[in-house]
């Protein structure tokens, strides 16, 4: 149930037996400094908004899944340097 399998990597958490999730909104953009524990993005599945927090403080280096796109459990969403 952790959001990061490796420090700085943001992945789709295990939400149980859901299919894919859709990225609804990034709450930071690449280059922004993000704080550990701050809301980083919202994903949606099965009429549920799930907020994923930044796993560490740092610079949001890269976003791999755009708003409106789908991802599955454990997919890499972003990297924080």
């Amino acid at each position, binding site marked *: *149930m952790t959001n990061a399998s490796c420090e700085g990597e943001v992945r789709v958490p295990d939400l149980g037996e859901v299919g894919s999730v859709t990225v609804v909104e990034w709450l930071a953009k690449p280059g922004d400094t993000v704080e550990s524990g701050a809301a980083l993005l919202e994903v949606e599945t*099965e009429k549920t908004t799930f907020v994923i*927090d930044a796993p560490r403080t740092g610079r949001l280096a890269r976003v791999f899944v755009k708003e409106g796109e789908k991802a599955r459990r454990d997919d890499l969403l972003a990297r924080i340097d």
Partner: protein
Amino acid sequence: MTCLRGSTERIAARHLPLGRAPYGPTWRLQKELHARRVAGTIPDTVLTVEHDPVFTVGRSGSRRNLRVSEAVRERAGIPVFEVERGGDITYHGPGQLVVYPIVDLREQGGDVHAFIGALEGAAIDFLADHGVEADRRAGFPGVWVGTRKIASVGVYVRRWVTRHGLALNLAVDRSHFAMIRPCGLDIDVVSLSELVSDPPTVDEAASAVLERLADALRWRLSVGDPSEVWRPRDG
């Protein structure tokens, strides 16, 4: 009954029946209780409420799914709130039971799908007790009687704690639903009062639905006094 993953011990939980209440203060109360649940200072808490007429739009929704102009909506005196739950537009109002569980999903195996299933299952079992066969539809969360929707779900999760929840139509004003495309779809809705001759009141339905939900979530449920946390008409 839907059983969620996790241990078999019962989890202490509190039911706060709010009665009839406007949307805004109830939304604020959910956020306060959510923060307290995240901080671990309160147990799982479930609110039941019958709202004054209101439209709410979820995170993947749009006001475009209002079928009427803003002027018509305002004349009808029905406010719109853009809220953080999943899903599109819906209607709440008199004759509808709304259930807002503030639940730590980590105690439920961290399974969002099973949690939604527990909400739907509580409504399905309740309806079966009244002789109505209702079911899920793949890809369309909520509870359906044939092709008509009788209950909607929409949830928000932060730090594994939920808010928002389930709305079950007992005897709802169809003219209000007609002002929207529910869930952004061209679907028909139905109330229990259209299917049975003696539908329960919202209060009766609240107790029955929560009994089912408590089984699914393994709650040991006690009823609390809402006045400790709640002054709805203060604005």
